């Protein structure tokens, strides 16, 4: 099973990198971009075959190290 963990700065926490990308898109005349948020994606190959167990384990990983929950939110997708 593969777990995809997406990590983004929390809503309301200013994202300087997203802002810089937004500026660059503006400068390139790409119109219609309202907001840009930049995050990171961590892909984990798991040995587990049980979705519930995997979700539990990856959630613990996200809370303990993958994300800094003071400033970041995360989502987990299992495939």
């Amino acid at each position, binding site marked *: 099973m593969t777990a995809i963990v997406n990590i983004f*700065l929390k809503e309301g*926490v*200013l994202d*300087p*990198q997203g802002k*810089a990308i937004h500026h660059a898109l503006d400068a390139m005349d790409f119109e219609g971009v309202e907001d840009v948020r930049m995050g990171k994606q961590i892909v984990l190959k798991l040995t587990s075959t049980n979705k519930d167990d995997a979700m539990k384990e990856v959630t613990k990983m996200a809370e303990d*190290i*993958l994300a*800094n929950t*003071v*400033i970041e939110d995360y989502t987990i997708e299992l495939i």
Partner: protein
Amino acid sequence: MKHVAILQFPGTNCDLDTKYAFEKLGCTTTVVWHKETDLPEETDLVIVPGGFSYGDYLRSGAIAQFSPVMQTVIEFANNGGKVLGICNGFQILTEVGLLPGALKRNIGLHFISKFQTLKIVNNTNDFLQKCDKDEILNIPIAHADGNYYIDEAGFKELEANEQILVRYSDDKGEPIIVNGSVTSIAGVCNKNKNVFGLMPHPERALENILGSDDGIKMLEGLIA
């Protein structure tokens, strides 16, 4: 004579400057490799120095928090031991939860390396006891992730408990935006006032001939 333990992670690069600084101030020192599980018995003060532990991978300070030595440092701090994190050390101490808040990428995205004036916000703690309230110090900064963030409830608590140590300011003491930090905060301490962290490098300000010796009165407070 006070004994200072200075942690060393792969990628730490201010360990020897910090050792030099405290030896100049009359302390004995030990540089402690991150895989150690014990601090020297006579340790009075632990410094988590600056650098780029683990190449800043994942987040600055994120990986270092799980080094064996950090568990010992957490125990040392929880027993009232004095700990100071400088720059990457500050990031590590927030990651590990010994200090509140977090450090984000600088608002302008640049790595900033220059002398910076700072205003002493609170001196009701061991670290800044030798400094006057509202005093302006000139101390180098060198960081890419120094943008201090804390939510509003946390900020109110910092203010109420006099946990804000220093702010980036102009030479008149007016706060200025350097890296986007909440209210220009450059350093904080924990509620018990025995764990301290700041982005500026007092260990790099020991000689007037190199720009400033204002770092001495900061570091001296911890070994008084």
